[in-house]
């Protein structure tokens, strides 16, 4: 799981062009949106694309997106639960 979380952090930094950040700057359990990292709706779309491109997982609804993308750990949980990690 920790390996997946580390991988996800690096992928998030790359996809969202967070050039000033390193994986250590991202807390796996803190919220990604609004507070915490302060990502926005465009970032959410990019992360949805990431999940489908890299892990073959589709987010069906906005509600599902909100839960899955809450934090790096919730993303990792989603991937693992779908046996893609």
């Amino acid at each position: 799981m920790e390996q997946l979380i580390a991988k996800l952090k690096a992928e998030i930094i790359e996809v969202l062009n967070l050039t000033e950040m390193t994986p250590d700057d991202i807390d796996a359990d803190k919220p990604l949106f609004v507070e915490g990292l302060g990502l926005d709706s465009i970032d959410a779309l990019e992360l949805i694309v990431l999940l489908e491109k890299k892990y073959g997982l589709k987010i069906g609804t906005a509600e599902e997106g909100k839960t899955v993308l809450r934090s790096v750990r919730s993303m990792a949980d989603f991937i693992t639960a779908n046996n893609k990690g």
Partner: protein
Amino acid sequence: MQNRVFVTGIGIISAIGYDTKEVLVSLLNRRSGIGSLTLIDSVYRNEIPVGEIKASNHDLQQLAGPGSNKWNTRTTLLGVLAAREAYEQAGLESGTESRAGFISATTVGGMDRSEIFYKKFMADKSRGRLKNIIGHDCGDSTEKIADSIGIKGFVTTLNTACSSSANSIILGTRLIRNGLLDVVVAGGTDALTLFTLNGFNSLMILDREICRPFDETRNGLNLGEGSAFLVLESEERVDRSGKKVLCEISGFGNACDAFHQTASSPEGEGAYLSMKLALDSAGILPGDIDYINAHGTGTRNNDLSEGTAVRRIFPAELPLLSSTKSYTGHTLAAAGAIEAVLSVLAIQNGVIYPNLNFSRQMNELDFSPVTELIKDIQIKHIMSNSFGFGGNNSTLILSRCS
């Protein structure tokens, strides 16, 4: 002392009709133009409904008549047809008007051809037919349309996303008000393209059904295509010619939401400001507005933001409100002008259009749009909204002339 600005001609082509007559018939018969995508080769062909004009570029060239082979982008062809109708209705003569301007608007210009070029070019830099790329930029269709109706005094193109052609009309109005020009043909044009289809799809805001503006269950917009132009003339010119005027552009507003690149602020600040500025510039009160033709795309974000802003502007009694985008689709840069033409038709014919496809009021709003076609109604002032990505919000006020 500022000149008053009147509309003396209108022209339109959209999914609900090839000219103003046909468009009005569709509106009165509640006939939406939204359906399947047939003319673009896309994997979403059977999935995403659009407001497509059921005419190929070749068909449009036939309609445009002799010399039309020089108008090779769909954007230009649509614009030529709409501008010509407006021009002829206003009784203008090609090439003889001095102190005349042509102001168009488009979001992606000749992309319908250039995306064909790029597909070949990106695979091999020596490939792709150059004639498909030379009309790519936004100014190309404008110049071709201006040339087709013989205007060369002042020519330019706006691009402020979905509010573009509302801004064309605003600029035209300001130029006449300030005595710099006497007549301006103002509007916009946009064709459906693979680029915009995929762009909006990547934002996950395209409804897989016909859009439901201001409905609690709304799920996005339908893209559309089309063009519309209005002939604007100064009061002095109109008095001299004694010609019939269709209505007056009595006010306008332009403000920036400055909240986010694509999302509108929850309290609809930009929308509120543009509506307020429009009312102030027309010198009228909220209670004087008889009908609001909303931007009303059907996205979760816009309709909430716009609905909230509308309530802020009209805290007491709300005018009748509807979005006509479930008729035409969202025609991007052309939307402002298309909806201005619909507003002119509403004033001329005493009708208010229904907001098609509506059934459930939004939880956050205390009002619903009009769902019935209302006929034989005296309309004095219409407010027309157009709100674009980048926070570009514009509002027009069109008024009946006695």
